[in-house]
């Protein structure tokens, strides 16, 4: 006869109850680990966004200067045309290109930092902040709104200034740089569409900033890709016509 005391048999219900308790405990452990609330991480995020805004502001300032320079006052037609072309097109372009390259680099870094889960498509900054820090929806949205509005404001300033400058283009310059003005308008339209219609679009704009910057850079490159000889000939012809009228 076997005198060993039989082990108490665990019932299926006991097993399931045990698993349920263990499941809830482990889910909490994983969630707490993922909801990293380090103040250092939050401060770093804040600083990174501010640094990004500075880079964008710098790029935009260069853009503004470019428009101010390029959409020039043709009443000063007696300037040394050849020197003006060099000063106006060649030198500023190198500076602008370098600045915009910084903006593109920042934009790419932004995507690397905030929108890294490319397997799931382009996530939004809002979603990332919420998932990572477990911040209540309203607080997250307020924070992201502030970032989006700051960026949108900068772009709106650029749009306003570029539009004002474009309105001052005189007939001679318009003839010579029609393509350029159209290009500026196209860029402005894209910026307005991307940033002028509310939170969702502003969020999308953060994601497309690198594309926007790259596109802008390409547009600017095309902008300067003009036929200088043809431009100078046209200016010369215009001067001849003016002189022939005794002006």
């Amino acid at each position: 006869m076997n005198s060993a005391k039989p082990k108490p048999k665990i019932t299926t219900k006991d097993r399931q109850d045990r698993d349920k308790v263990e499941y809830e405990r482990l889910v909490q452990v994983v969630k707490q680990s993922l909801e990293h609330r380090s103040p250092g991480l939050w401060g770093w995020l804040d600083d990174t966004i501010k640094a990004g805004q500075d880079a964008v502001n710098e790029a935009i300032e260069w853009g503004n200067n470019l428009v101010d320079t390029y959409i020039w006052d043709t009443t000063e037609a007696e300037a040394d045309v050849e020197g003006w072309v060099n000063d106006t097109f060649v030198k500023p372009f190198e500076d602008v290109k370098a600045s915009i390259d910084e903006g593109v680099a920042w934009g790419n870094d932004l995507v690397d930092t905030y929108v890294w889960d490319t397997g799931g498509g382009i996530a939004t900054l809002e979603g990332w902040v919420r998932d990572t820090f477990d911040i209540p929806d309203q607080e997250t949205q307020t924070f992201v709104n502030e970032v989006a509005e700051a960026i949108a404001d900068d772009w709106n300033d650029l749009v306003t200034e570029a539009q004002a400058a474009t309105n001052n283009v005189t007939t001679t310059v318009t003839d010579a740089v029609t393509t350029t003005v159209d290009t500026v308008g196209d860029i402005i339209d894209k910026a307005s569409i991307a940033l002028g219609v509310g939170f969702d679009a502003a969020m999308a704009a953060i994601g497309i900033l690198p594309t926007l910057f790259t596109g802008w850079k390409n547009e600017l490159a095309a902008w300067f890709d003009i036929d200088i000889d043809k431009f100078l000939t046209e200016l010369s012809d215009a001067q001849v016509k003016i002189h022939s009228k005794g002006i």
Partner: protein
Amino acid sequence: MPLPKEVLDAVASDIARANSALAELKEVVADMKLSGMDTTTQSLEVADLSKKLRSMQTFYELRKAKA
């Protein structure tokens, strides 16, 4: 802008903790299924947590590379 080392270390510690707990969690869900329970909800939650953990790991690797 590099992430401070102490913050990186804290994130790495959290990732290790989450990895360990997630492995146990998968075993528990497997046992629940073997005991005859419907584990559809639990499997979805585990998949979601796995995705978030992958994101956190990718974030960490990216920031570590730039530190």
